[in-house]
């Protein structure tokens, strides 16, 4: 069995890549996807620790995170569609008005 450090490192790498994506990309859809990647990185941690402690509580948390990601994707993409309809763009730096 792999020591847990490996999982933590994998999770960290994915998290950092996701964070970089969120910061550097202009396309809001890709930003949302990067956020999904971050959530996914967290899930690896939860499951790895759940394995160490020998129960499934961590996995239940991971499931909640997946549900949360689904909700986030639905609302986020809804916003993107509404925004695209009004402004015909999905670039983050062009979203400069709070109200349209």
């Amino acid at each position, binding site marked *: 069995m*792999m020591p847990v450090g490996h999982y933590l490192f994998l999770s960290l790498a994915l998290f950092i890549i996701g*964070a970089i994506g969120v910061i550097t990309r202009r396309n809001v859809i890709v930003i949302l996807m990067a956020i999904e990647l971050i959530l*996914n990185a967290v*899930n690896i941690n939860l499951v790895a620790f759940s394995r*160490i402690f020998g129960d499934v509580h961590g*996995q239940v948390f991971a499931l909640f995170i997946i*549900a949360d990601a689904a909700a986030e994707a639905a*609302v986020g993409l809804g*916003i993107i569609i509404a925004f695209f309809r009004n402004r015909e763009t999905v*670039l983050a730096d062009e979203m400069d008005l709070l109200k349209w």
Partner: protein
Amino acid sequence: MLDSIIFYFFAGVAILSAALMVTRRNAIHSAVFLITTLLATAGIFLQLRAEFLFIAQIILYVGGIMVLFVFVIMLVRLDVPLNHITFRFQKWVALFVAMALACEVGVMFWYVRRLPSAGLLTPPAPSPDKLPPNSEQFAKVLFSNYLLPFEIASVLLLVAMIGAVIMAKKRT
């Protein structure tokens, strides 16, 4: 041995395709690489003997959420904005954030190694022949200890669904 091969394979695939996902210009390519990352993560879950989460990841994340993403990307045809480049200073911010996070975790590793109970961090070996009935344990915990959060999560999903429908609806 087999375990570590599986782990390194999936971890490598996950990190590589995550990196590609962030760097590809084309949003559809990003989505494809994200799907690959998610599938590789599912593989990691399986390697951790979390089989229910493995399939939940595939059905919900890949089969549900990512389909939604791909659908929206195809709906808002993005060919034009894709050619724009990113801001320059954001790269430095990103680098800084990445370094900060890496340092933080490096410190943690260093600190953990000095703890006396470092052995805690190696998981117990799995039973060799058969996987434990993971879904049943999972259900028991989910529907006893976490019943209230479960209900709240379902309400959250409902609210998200309604919100998405209202926002995406055509204003007439």
